[in-house]
């Protein structure tokens, strides 16, 4: 079964990149441009994994994690946080908020694909 990825990022560039990398890896990828659209898409799409940015307008990445984890459907979906920060405090905060893991931008294709496989258990 094809893995469905929900990518949430306010940057068109990053969305395009994530989508390309995911699709090249044979995953299905849907996108959202901010946290609010992200949680809506999450409810509609029931993705197998969420990749979200932290700094976004309307609702940030922490808000997305809280909303998903605090919901009732698919609440334990793996959530990877995209961050340009390498600072440990942000990782800790993401983990505290309920993120499954994080991806440090700039990412390379293999890293992000192997991470997605790792947390979803997808073969490849």
């Amino acid at each position, binding site marked *: 079964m094809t893995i469905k990825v929900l990518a949430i990022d*306010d*940057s*068109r*560039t*990053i969305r*395009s*990149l994530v989508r*390309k990398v995911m699709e090249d890896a044979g995953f299905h990828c849907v996108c959202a441009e901010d946290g*609010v*659209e992200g*949680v*809506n898409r*999450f*409810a*509609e799409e029931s993705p197998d994994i969420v990749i979200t*940015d932290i*700094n*976004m*307008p*309307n*609702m940030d990445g922490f808000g997305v994690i809280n*909303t998903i*984890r605090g*919901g*009732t*459907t698919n*609440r*334990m*979906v*793996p*959530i990877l946080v*995209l961050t*340009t920060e*390498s*600072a440990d405090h942000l990782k*800790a905060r993401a*983990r505290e908020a*309920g*993120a*499954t*893991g*994080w991806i*440090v*931008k*700039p*990412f*390379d294709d*293999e*890293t992000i694909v*192997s*991470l997605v496989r*790792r*947390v*979803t*258990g997808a*073969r490849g």
Partner: protein
Amino acid sequence: MSTLNSIRDTFFEECEDLMADLADGLAKMQSGSADPETVNAVFRAVHSVKGGAGAFSLTELVAFSHQFETVLDELRSDRLKLQPELMFTLLRSADHLTVLIEAARDGVDVDAVVTQNSAAALRIWLKPSSDAADAPASASESFSFAAVTLDFGAFDQLNDTPNEPELKHYEIAFQPTATLFSNGHEPALLFGELSRLGTVSSTIDLGELPAWEEFDTTVPFMKWTLKLASTAEIDQVRAVFEFVDGLCKLNIVVAPMPVDQEALQFEASLPPAPAPLPMRQAVAEPIAPVPEKPSPAVKAASVSPQISDQHGPKPTLRVELDRVDRLINAVGELIINQAMIAQRVNEMPVTTDSEVVTYVEDYRLLARDIQEAVMAIRAQPVKPLFQRMSRIVREAADATGKSAQLLAFGEEIEVDKTVIERLADPLTHMIRNAVDHGLESPEDRIKAGKEACGTIRLSAAHRSGRVIISIKDDGAGLNRPKILKIAKDKGLIPQDADLVEADIDSLLFQPGFSTAQKVSNLSGRGVGLDVVRTAVTALGGRVAINSVPGQGTEFTISLPLTLAVMDGMVVSVRGQTMIAPISSIVETIRPALSEVHSVGPSSKYLSILGEFIPIIDVAASLGIAPNTSPSDPPLLLLVESENQSQCALIVDEVHDQRQVVIKGLEHNYRSVQGVSAATVLGNGQIALILDLDAIAFQRSAPEAPAEASPLTKGA
């Protein structure tokens, strides 16, 4: 790779938007109308530039935006107070960021010293402690930043690295908390990951599983003991558990002895990457509270619309410009086709009452609707263009040692995309000019009782189907005696010429005129306002000057809303059909012979209400044989320049008014004096569109009969 290239294009497109957001936010911060969200938005803009730049290994851009972002982060978390000097640094940094983005896009280098200085200016605002801690500041910053990408490379590297190192035996005690599960982790997947490092065996201890009713999600209730035989280093083993650090009790030790036989046998029965254990279900369900009735979908739908209504921009569609232009061309053909049909129908003898006439009229209206809708696609707000101008003002003020600010109005006014693009250079020139020539030095301003800081007002507005862009400074005004003297010295006008103010002002647009006595950084390039006028005219626009001594100078550019169509009056000149733009025409007159006065051998004037207005023969100025029957009172088009000076142009006949599709002459041929463009008439013939301003008001070389015989010229 073409996909990557197109994402790269996306990045630079997005950067334009981001820089516009940045400029927007900074402007609000500068004017004091910023709220906390403004600073956040500014931060996000820079942050997104950095993120995208990182993806394309644009290290300079990453390094500088990181520095910029760090300062903004201090600001948004209130560790730094906004003050004028900081505001200045932020504006400069935004300028430099634009430079870096453009350089990265065009693949050119930016002087590293400039970037270092800009970064240093930002660094001043960071406390030494934070500087050292999380804002790597030197040029090596980009490298430390980039190194972070390797965080997870360990796994992949491992598979590729030949296994020379010795086999180690790890014993791993792993006891997850409930949070580990609720964060989306799955022990089986962790073990699977571990098995990529080597051979894994595991034993599960369910002994601590509490009674159902005592279930406490905060207490670990299950533990695994894993044995791993691997050549990997312990850090690589730990890295597998990086995400669950703090979400489990974890103890990893290197076992002194080889893994025992029993465990190896166990391993054999365990798939290298185990299928998900039923654990997740068993654990997950009790943790999940009883589902609330409103599902998240419903909940999200009921909450989010309010949010998105507040903040969400109108949905948009990005389309390649080519496609729009194809559509516009097709619509242009449609309009011509409509005109041809209308003309044929009108020529048919029996159609006066026919339904066909109604249908043709409907067709005309529909075609016009389509055309307007299509044109609207190309319309864009002038805001980004105006935003660039505040950077120009800062640069120009710096270069001239003046103090200046730009106030922009009407940024939301929309103009055709091409008009905006082609307006950039003339506008830049005029803005520089306003700072360089218009504004006085701070000392002189204070002497004159003005603020030391000069103001340039840049505004856009709609006026009767055109867009008016005004550049107004509060400087000293034009020095008309000096302009007159320069024009005489340069032989642009006769020594004894006595010109009215408007005509003196127009001298600024004469080729070769430049008032700058000392060559400054800005205007020493031999580029005069004549270039501005040419550029604006090429857009179907006109420039006018209005200046009050001591109070300042205003340049007004009047532009068509679109480049593709215009309202024209169809006229005949010596049997040739031509189009006169209606925007310049005040009225058409057939004067009495007594109102036309001959002055000298060839000049004629029209007297209207006691004023004398020069009469110019369009045919003669275009080099077509002039009218040979001077006794007839000529038919005149009374035209007015933006300077309100009037002129009467002789034509032979005036037909109707109609909308015409503008076709440039330059692409396949070249520009022609007195002609701004061409159009296709209903009969498929081409008609030239007259540049009335050029015909009426290019009188500097008073009479130029040499111009009138082009066929002998250059042969």
